[in-house]
Structures are given as C-alpha cells and as structure tokens.
C-alpha cells in the first residue's frame, strides 16, 4: 500500500470588516427592545 504524505490544511488569516453585532446579554438594553419596554403611566 502506497503511503501518502500528510499535508496539514493551510491556514489563512482573513482580514474582514463586519457590521456591528451586539452579543445577546452583553448590552445595556434588553434583547429586542430599543424603546421603552416597561409600565406606562
């Protein structure tokens, strides 16, 4: 059986820009609530 030399997958650093994305729970506002989300008087 012929031996095949192992080749490690090539790694590439990708330089990218992306739209801001707030992780759930990391912000000051409740999820999905950009406005007032409590009791009305």
């Amino acid at each position: 059986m012929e031996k095949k030399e192992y080749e490690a997958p090539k790694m590439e650093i990708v330089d990218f820009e992306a739209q801001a994305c707030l992780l759930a729970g990391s912000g000051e506002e409740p999820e999905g609530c950009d406005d007032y989300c409590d009791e009305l008087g």
Partner: protein
Amino acid sequence: MNGKVLTAATVAALSCLVSTVWAERPSEDATCEFPGGAYYKSNNTLYLESVNDENARIEILDTTKSCIDVNSSGEFNLVVERSTKLATNSTIVLPMNYSPKSSCIELYDPYAFTTNDEGVWNVFASNAPGNGVAHRALLMITDTQRKECQDIKEIEFTASGLQLVNEHTQAQLERELHNPKSGANDWALEGSYNFIRWDKDHADLGKVYGYAAKDKNKVQAGHFTKVGAGAYIPPMRAYLKYRGQTPLAKSVESIVELPETIDVTLVEEDGTTRLARWNTVTGEMVKVNGWYDLKGRKLNSKPQNKGMFIGNTNIQK
C-alpha cells in the same frame, strides 16, 4: 429548618403581603366586590385597581351599580390604586365622572396632534378644570415638585354617575385627535379597562406611545415615549396610537418616520400654553455604547491588543 432562615423567610413573606395590601381600605369585608375593585358602604368609597397583573381588568355590571349606595347628592368617594407612584405625567380613564380631591393633580384633555415648524410632533391638551368625564381618556399632570405629591399611589376622587363596563365598552374609549396640517384624524388616544401588553409580534407595535411610569434606561418616569416590545399598561390608563390613515402610512418608509418622542403642549384656561417640562428628547438609541469582548464584558476603551472584540462599526482583528 434553621431558625434564622425561617425567621428571614417569614419576614420576607410578611413584607410581600404587606406590600400587596391596600392600606386605605376598611378592615371589614367589602359591601360588594367585582373584577378590578370593591365598594365599602362604611365609608361610601369605591376602590378600583390599576395594577400590574396580566389578568387585571375592570368589569362593572348592573349588580355592581345597584350595590353602590350613593348619598343624596349621588356622589361617592373613589380611590384608584396604582402599583406605581404617579410620575409627573400619566393618563387616566374612568367609568364615571370624577374630580381629584388633591391639588397635586390636574387633568388635561387632548384635542389636536400635529407637527410644529421644526417637524416635531406635538400633542395639544387643554386644561379640564377639575373634572373628568366618564369613559373619556385624559392626561393627568401631577405636581411632583411638591414633596406631598411625590409618592401618590392611591389617587382620591369625588365621583358620580357610575357607568357600565363590559365587553362593549372598549369601543367607546378611543379618542380621535385631529391633525390640522393633514386635515385628518391621524392619531387616537385610547383608554383601556383591561391590562394590555405589547409583545414583539403585536400588530400595533411601532405605532403606540405613552407616558413612562418608571425610570428605565434613557427614559425617565413621566416622559412621553415610543412603546417597545414587552411594554404594558394596566387598566384605566391610556396610550396614543397612530391610526394609519394619512400620508404617513402610504409607504413602509413613512412608518419608519414615526416620531421617537412627542412633545406635549398644555393649554391653560386663560389661553396660555406651556410645553411640558419632560419634553426633552429621550436620546438617540445607540445599540452599542463602547466596546465589548466576546464574552460580553464591557471594556473601558477601544482595545489596543489583537483579538476579536465587538465594537461600534466593525470587528476589530
């Protein structure tokens, strides 16, 4: 069980009970009870509950009306119990004619809704000197500058002319507001005798405005503000709703243009006007204020080292 734990649990339970008991009600059993309230003949007082409960509602049937034994003047005392103290600005709608007993409170009757020269939306409301009319939603202004007016949870009125509240009543609670610029009734002040919550899939979300009852994020109690998902309103209060019958509603883009905040101009009896003290814009909502790491921890400043962070406009590599 540990005695200290038991004691602490007992104190906590008692504290909870005390906080839910309305101190002003007489100690004896109510003469009659109904959804949302009770009447006590001993002090000729009707108590109505405007509280945070998903099932809260007011229902007044003929049996309730007949239970209330009014005096010769036809008047009775009314106490509206709120779970949150009155902010400077709030709303009210009641199934009877009423007059506040306290000088802390003034009632204003909205009549027009338009934009000013700068394009800022504005509600105009006239002073309703001392009187509220059954089923008519009003703005309620509390002079919270005065110390004795800062912690009002039970609002006392002199009342008369109790009306029925049943499944047909809600239709009577919508107040159309005229827009002099468009010539149409673009908005409505809608009262409710039921608890309402605007969940994220609610059809009216994005078209509803109201007075904040609490300080929350950038919105202060008493501010007039746009309602977001999860907001709610207890019974016997009112909110402003866009009715979608003007050029505003002709395109999706126009809906986006609905105002984030709305000023309120109060017109006094002598014709003088005053902009509400609370009419400051509540601030542009910036979803990301500063920088966060991937675990969601907020950083003091923009990170200098390499790595991935969540920031204002991009992912910093």
